[in-house]
């Protein structure tokens, strides 16, 4: 095909798409709203800083052998120490005596990278201290350029000696440096990348760091040392940095990046933040405003995606979409449009210096990709694929709308690393995969004609006659664990037997969802092990899982009511009275759903021990329950008012998630930002909780009454 023909064809395709959407005012209105949102936050004067394509802390170019200290002898028997270039020695037992390190460590004469970690800094009130004998052994490893130490502290002067004796280029000290001995870092004259955890960025430390002549990247994390009993960081006023304090960093001849963790953001949000530019890159996502912007961007993408999906759907739900060859191809330009919108959003978010464009774009396109992928899987001929996709979709929905809060809590390093654009290959691949899935999803949209017409004729926009030659899609029960159906006998008037029968008619098993959620959690923890990170923060993760499962409760409860609603007219004809029928079905659903109440309860139990106060956890707990109730209420209300489950459920679920996302986001940001916000947030949320809970309870009760009256005729 020559170039002219290709151009003509492209023009005709664009014209086709434009003509399709030209008369869709709602579509354009929503796009305009999105553009307005973008424009209002756009800053022409601030440009995104360049993104340095380096790891925050460069890892050794060869992998580190991972050895737990008790298995060290076995490792030695299997490997030639002289050939090992990288070594991670984990779980070093400080109680072994002097020296603490295995004496054979000095046999690793060609070791280039060494990573040591103890068990816990304050375990049993003891301190794991590197002994002189250990330092003598390490002194023999004269080829070391990478040294990482976690939890192992030093006697006075030891670290300085270590720095003098080695040419360390990358130094990681994770809660291994006493704040009063930061002066000893001056001996590391060759270090280029310095990562300090558990050390506050004080003027004294800045002075020491500025004296390191070859330093290019500095990462400072406050860590847990200053963690107060109520999980708030104590930052004394005298520690507050000023622009003048930061001057030495800014004027450092080689220092390019300073990654300071979130306590630093609180310190430097005002004048110091400007002063740090251009030599720093704060983890700005930890501050409130950019995070809210990210949430707004996600929400905007949801709105835009919804608008486009509806428009595409109405366009494709025509018989022509099924039979005209390549009917859908021009519409593949729509994802391209989404791409541009995402780009615009990322430009809007450009003031987030440490967030790169492509990762941000993938975040923005996450929801569209997710929905398209879900639709694509729903077109599968395999019922198992469809069911599995639905379960995973519903489970992940709990995390989708709050990836920047829960995600940070669970995988802070990975999220930070990803958003910083430090791996262009991965973010680029993610973007390509997203666009591919969206394209496939959109190409499958015409099948909505068939699916809707056959399965939901009432919802189809076209007068659709059921095709008797085609089969209904068979949805298997998620499990049939309630015994053999072939051995069922008459209930003989027993209410419990009848309730058991109704339960057999339910397609979903609530406890199965809990198991799936649990397995998903185990998989995530497994990933942390696999990636070499010990899941020391398992409780926040469990808290997030409970939140996710609590969200699932809304889905499943609504789904069960939907399913029962479809069969009520026929099942009402079973030989039982109206009262018996209503109470039996209600009990059956209640008994089936009660395991799901474990999720909000888990939320309540895990919350306080995972870093949130009891008041905060209680508040969020009531919020979760209220929002779940509101979701069910909304869905039932739609059904009773409009007889439309299909519009009611997505609408209410989206509303639910939007509210939930904003509340959780605001809460998470407030509790992880600065001193003082937590109490305000709890007060504010608690004040709102009471009316919301009341409205939810009344709404749920009222909708239940409506359903009883409408479906079962009971006033």
């Amino acid at each position, binding site marked *: 095909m020559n170039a002219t023909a290709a151009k003509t064809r492209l023009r005709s395709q664009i014209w086709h798409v434009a003509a399709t959407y030209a008369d869709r005012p709602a579509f354009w209105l929503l796009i305009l709203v999105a553009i307005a949102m973008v424009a209002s936050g756009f800053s022409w004067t601030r440009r995104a800083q360049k993104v340095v394509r380096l790891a925050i802390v460069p890892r050794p170019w060869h992998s580190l052998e991972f050895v737990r200290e008790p298995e060290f002898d076995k490792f030695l028997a299997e490997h030639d120490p002289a050939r090992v270039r990288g070594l991670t020695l984990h779980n070093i037992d400080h109680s072994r005596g002097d020296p603490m390190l295995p004496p054979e460590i000095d046999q690793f004469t060609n070791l280039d990278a060494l990573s040591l970690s103890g068990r816990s800094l304050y375990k049993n009130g003891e301190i794991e201290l590197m002994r002189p004998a250990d330092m003598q052994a390490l002194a023999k490893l004269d080829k070391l350029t990478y040294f990482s130490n976690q939890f192992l502290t030093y006697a006075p002067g030891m670290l300085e000696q270590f720095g003098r004796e080695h040419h360390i280029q990358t130094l990681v000290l994770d809660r291994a440096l006493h704040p009063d001995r930061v002066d000893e870092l001056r001996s590391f004259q060759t270090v280029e990348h310095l990562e300090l955890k558990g050390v506050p960025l004080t003027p004294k430390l800045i002075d020491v760091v500025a004296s390191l002549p070859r330093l290019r990247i500095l990462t400072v994390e406050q860590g847990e040392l200053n963690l107060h009993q109520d999980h708030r960081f104590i930052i004394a006023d005298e520690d507050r940095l000023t622009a003048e304090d930061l001057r030495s960093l800014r004027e450092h001849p080689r220092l390019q990046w300073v990654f300071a963790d979130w306590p630093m953001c609180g310190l430097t949000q005002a004048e110091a933040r400007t002063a740090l530019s251009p030599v720093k890159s704060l983890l700005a996502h930890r501050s409130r405003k950019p995070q809210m912007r990210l949430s707004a961007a996600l929400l905007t993408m949801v709105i835009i995606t919804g608008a486009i999906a509806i428009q595409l759907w109405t366009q494709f739900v025509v018989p022509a979409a099924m039979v005209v060859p390549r009917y859908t191809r021009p519409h593949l330009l729509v994802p391209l449009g989404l791409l541009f919108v995402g780009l615009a959003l990322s430009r809007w978010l450009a003031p987030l210096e440490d967030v790169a464009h492509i990762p941000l774009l993938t975040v923005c396109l996450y929801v569209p990709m997710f929905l398209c992928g879900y639709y694509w899987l729903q077109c599968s001929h395999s*019922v198992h694929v469809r069911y599995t996709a639905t379960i995973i979709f519903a489970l992940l929905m709990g995390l989708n709308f709050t990836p920047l809060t829960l995600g940070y809590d669970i995988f802070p390093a990975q999220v930070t690393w990803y958003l910083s654009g430090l791996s262009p290959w991965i973010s680029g691949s993610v973007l390509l995969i997203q666009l591919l899935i969206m394209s496939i999803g959109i190409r499958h949209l015409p099948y909505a004609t068939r699916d809707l017409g056959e399965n939901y004729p009432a919802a189809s926009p076209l007068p659709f006659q*059921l*095709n*008797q*030659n*085609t*089969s*209904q*899609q*068979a*949805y*298997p*029960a998620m499990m*049939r664990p309630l015994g053999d*159906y*072939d*051995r*069922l*006998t*008459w*209930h*003989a008037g027993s209410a419990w037997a*009848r309730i058991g*029968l109704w339960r*057999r*008619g339910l*397609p979903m098993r609530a406890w199965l969802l809990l198991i799936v959620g649990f397995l998903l959690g185990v998989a995530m923890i497994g990933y942390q092990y696999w990636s070499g990170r010990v899941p020391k923060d398992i409780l926040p993760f469990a808290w997030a899982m409970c939140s996710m499962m609590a969200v699932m409760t809304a889905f499943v409860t609504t789904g069960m009511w939907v399913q029962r609603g*479809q*069969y009520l*007219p*026929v*099942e*009402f*004809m*079973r*030989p*039982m*009275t*109206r009262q*018996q029928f209503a109470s039996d079905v209600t009990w059956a659903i209640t008994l089936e759903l009660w395991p799901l109440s474990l999720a909000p309860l888990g939320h309540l139990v895990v919350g306080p021990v995972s870093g949130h106060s009891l008041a905060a956890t209680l508040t969020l707990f009531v919020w979760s329950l209220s929002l779940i109730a509101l979701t069910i209420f909304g869905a039932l209300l739609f059904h009773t008012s409009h007889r439309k489950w299909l519009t009611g459920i997505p609408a209410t679920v989206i509303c639910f998630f939007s509210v939930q996302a904003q509340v959780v986001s605001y809460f998470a940001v407030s509790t992880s930002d600065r001193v003082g916000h937590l109490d305000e947030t709890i007060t504010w949320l608690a004040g709102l909780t009471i009316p919301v809970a009341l409205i939810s309870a009344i709404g749920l009760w009222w909708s239940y009454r409506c359903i009883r009256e409408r479906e079962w*005729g009971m006033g």
Partner: protein
Amino acid sequence: MSPSNIVLRTERLHKSFENQEVLQGINLEIPQGQIVGLLGANGSGKTTLIKCLLGLLKPSAGKSELLGEPSWDLSVKAKDRLGYVPQEPALLPWMPVQSHANYVGAFYEHWSRDRVSRWLKVWDVDPKKQVGKLSVGQRQKLATILALGHDPELLILDEPVASLDPAARRQFMQSLIELAEDERHTVLFSTHIMSDVERVASHVAIMHGGEIAYYGELDQLKDRIKRVRLTRDEDFPATTECPLAIHSRVEGRHLLLSVDRDRLSYDELAERYSAKLEVIDLNLEEIFLDLCGGHEAAFAIGGESTR
């Protein structure tokens, strides 16, 4: 007709949805042993009437009784004698057919697995197949079989053959006839398809505008409603009307009237218009169209049980 013989009775039954009156005072009595075809255009209130009869909808006014009990408060025993097949079969798609039958059967004291197996075989529904994988017609058959499993005295079907092909429809209707051979059984089914009613029903109830326009024996209806062609030498005026006719149309020298023989005498007509008279038999579809598309006189026709 003895009152104890009546299985279904309504009295001035009204049902409104948001100020729209769907049923406008239905009076109907169906005795045991009849196969009644409920006819009516879309929106005429057939499904609403059936739901009111079954207690699925609460009437706005009036009475409705089924098997001698108020529809709204049917007892366990009454429901045990009742079978219902809705317009869209509500089946559990994940279950195999046999399991589904067993599941439904566990609700009934007098469920006959043998009868169900026999019907499944007769109607060629694979008991091992998953319900969701059945064709629409097979699902309709299964829904009917499940409604028959406990040998109900009264079977109510809401447009049961709408989604069946002609062959399956014929087979389905034949089965209904076999079912009704036992005089204990009464069947009420709504449909749009007149030929099915003619083939199966002993009685018809025609609904129009929320009312029963006719209820009675099918043969009697055909015998009463006739088309009359009046022919004379000069043209009929275009505005010619016959007040007591169900429907009238002028075609030049011909005047076509649909008339109820009980209300209009052929001799009187011939004499009034000074024309030659020819009587033409109508099939049920033509009668239905005349009754439901004609003017108000059509609704004044009284059936044997319509009051």
